[in-house]
């Protein structure tokens, strides 16, 4: 059993993948695929684009794997490639129309046990995220979902930590405004929604 664990350790998988072992790379991808896919999904707001983009990230990672030197964790290195791919995607497809949220079938993304109320909530949050600019959305996801510091976000996106912080706060302000957490009636609504979770 320990031999098997060792054989499947991330370092070993990376070494095998660097030697053009696609199976080892696929095992690495399986470990991190969901996280990368979720980032891509919330960034693109489109399931098909999210799949294309996340697959592109894996292909780029595979091609650049020889340059991975274990200075940082594999996921940190992979996240860097992900952010660069997102930024390139933003440049090339900035004029592409996004799929309207109403046409998203939330049931295909949410688990089968989710209630109708959860579906409504899903749409509300997706609309709120869609109202953000792509940069604001990405910075918000990196700060909140990925737990990156403003310095790390600034380095990854080519801006100052102050700019990154400002974008995250603006995104948060927009989300608050969308959920109407300011007034009392909306506050009750939010509390009720939160209670669902």
């Amino acid at each position: 059993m320990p031999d098997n664990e060792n054989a499947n350790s991330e370092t070993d998988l990376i070494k095998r993948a660097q030697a053009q072992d696609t199976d080892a790379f696929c095992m690495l991808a399986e470990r991190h695929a969901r996280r990368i896919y979720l980032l891509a999904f919330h960034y693109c707001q489109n399931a098909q684009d999210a799949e294309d983009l996340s697959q592109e990230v894996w292909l780029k990672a595979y091609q650049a794997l020889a340059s991975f030197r274990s200075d940082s964790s594999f996921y940190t290195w992979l996240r860097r490639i992900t952010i660069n791919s997102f930024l390139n995607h933003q440049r090339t497809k900035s004029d592409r129309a996004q799929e309207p949220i109403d046409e998203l079938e939330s049931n295909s993304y949410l688990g089968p046990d989710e209630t109708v109320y959860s579906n409504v909530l899903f749409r509300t949050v997706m609309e709120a995220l869609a109202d953000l600019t792509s940069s604001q959305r990405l910075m918000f996801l990196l700060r909140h979902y990925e737990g990156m510091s403003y310095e790390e976000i600034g380095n990854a996106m080519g801006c100052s930590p102050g700019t990154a912080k400002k974008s995250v706060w603006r995104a948060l302000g927009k989300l608050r405004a969308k959920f109407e957490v300011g007034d009392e009636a909306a506050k009750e609504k939010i509390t009720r929604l939160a209670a669902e979770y």
Partner: protein
Amino acid sequence: MHNCKATIDRVTELLLDRPEARPDDLLSKELVRCAECRNEFDALKETLRITNGVIEKIEPSQSYWNAYHARLKQQLESTTIHNLEPRERSWLARFFRSSIRVPVPVGLALLVLFTVAFLFATRESQREVEVSRTISVPVLFEVPVPQEKIVTRVVYRDRLVKRRDISTANSVMAKTQNEVRPTALVGFKPLDEVKLTVIKGGSPNEK
């Protein structure tokens, strides 16, 4: 002294890190003291809890992931085959396809350097052309060309006239020649050396 801005800043960063995080004692005291900050804390907490909940709730089915990984593996294998092909290319093709990374400031500096060098070289060549034009301006000056003209004159001498009379007659003749210059000699400049050929005889009276 309570500072709403600083408190909200700390609250926001705390909740961004973890929506379910609880404020520490110091922050709790600040929130108890200020209703506005407390409301802000509650609103942000609920906003981030809902957002985070939806972000995490996305869960494609297992069949989706199976298909996803199968597609990825197929693409990886085709990429591996594709990557092996360029190694068989000739060194010339590889040379023309190769590239180097140059930082933007270095690239700009090189560009400026080449531009300045080009302008400088162009200006120098223009200056050289100007100099050569100055040298090639033609200057006209007169070159003396030796002219030679043969003048034949028949002179009759009276042998009976005395030597003294001859010299007198010669001077008179010279005067006459100076005064009456033949039209054939107009514009003629004699050389420093004059060839004079004297032909004796030929007269019927000569004995």
